[in-house]
């Protein structure tokens, strides 16, 4: 029974790891609480690492070359997925330019006209003028 479970863990763990990695960018990123700190995906990835490690000795002791290679590959995939998410979330995404480059508070907006999604022009210098109310301007990198 335990052997069968370990055999399943061989392929379930790395597949789940792949799902946790890809799922971060496609699913959990939509929920800000799960996206800011990817604790859910990291927890799943840690579990897959444990699963791959748990399956390894059995495959090594009883399996032939194919099973041994599969077990090693599974552990490799689980580790790589975990390392990728950690690298992306905690190192790569800190690569934004210095805040000094940006216009500080107190500066007026330039008189630039941009089209909204209905192609109607909006004059930025008119934003937040008296009688206009405040405006929250949110810049994002695009739909890709």
């Amino acid at each position, binding site marked *: 029974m335990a052997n069968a479970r370990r055999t399943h863990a061989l392929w379930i763990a790395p597949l789940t790891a792949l799902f946790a990695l890809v799922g971060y960018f496609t699913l959990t990123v939509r929920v800000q609480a799960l996206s800011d700190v990817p604790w859910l995906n990291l927890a799943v990835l840690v579990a897959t690492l444990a699963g791959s490690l748990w399956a390894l000795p059995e495959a090594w002791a009883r399996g032939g070359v194919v099973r041994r290679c599969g077990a090693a590959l599974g552990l490799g995939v689980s580790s790589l997925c975990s390392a990728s998410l950690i690298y992306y979330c905690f190192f790569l995404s800190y690569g934004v330019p210095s805040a000094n480059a940006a216009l500080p*508070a107190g500066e007026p907006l330039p008189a630039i006209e941009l*089209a*909204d999604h209905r192609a109607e022009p909006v004059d930025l210098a008119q934003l*937040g003028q008296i009688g206009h*109310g405040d*405006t929250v301007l*949110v810049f994002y*990198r*695009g*739909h890709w």
Partner: protein
Amino acid sequence: MTELRGLQLSLEEFRRRGIEVLAVSPDSVDQNRGVVEKLGLDFRILSDPDLALTRALGLEHAGMGPGGTDVPRPATLIVREGAIRWRHLTDNWRVRPRPETILAALSDLDDRAALDERGAPAL
């Protein structure tokens, strides 16, 4: 685009306080219309395809777009009476300010404006 969904969920509160929400992207008008329809947004997205506004505000992130193009860095500004009053430039492009943070900043600005009107309190 997660922040757009979050803003949509809090839009009622922004409206109640008389605040307009405007997003800015480097996408075309058509692409922005697609995003508005897909996410069901009730606020406008401005198209800044050549980054005229983005660059004027110093918000470009060089080479980080598709094919090494320049894109805006994720940023949130509060504009009052034609000038920037508050800005949030994240140090991690994944992490954007939550609507609660922006609403708290707006309340803070209101408090400070009220204080200015009354004059600085005597020390």
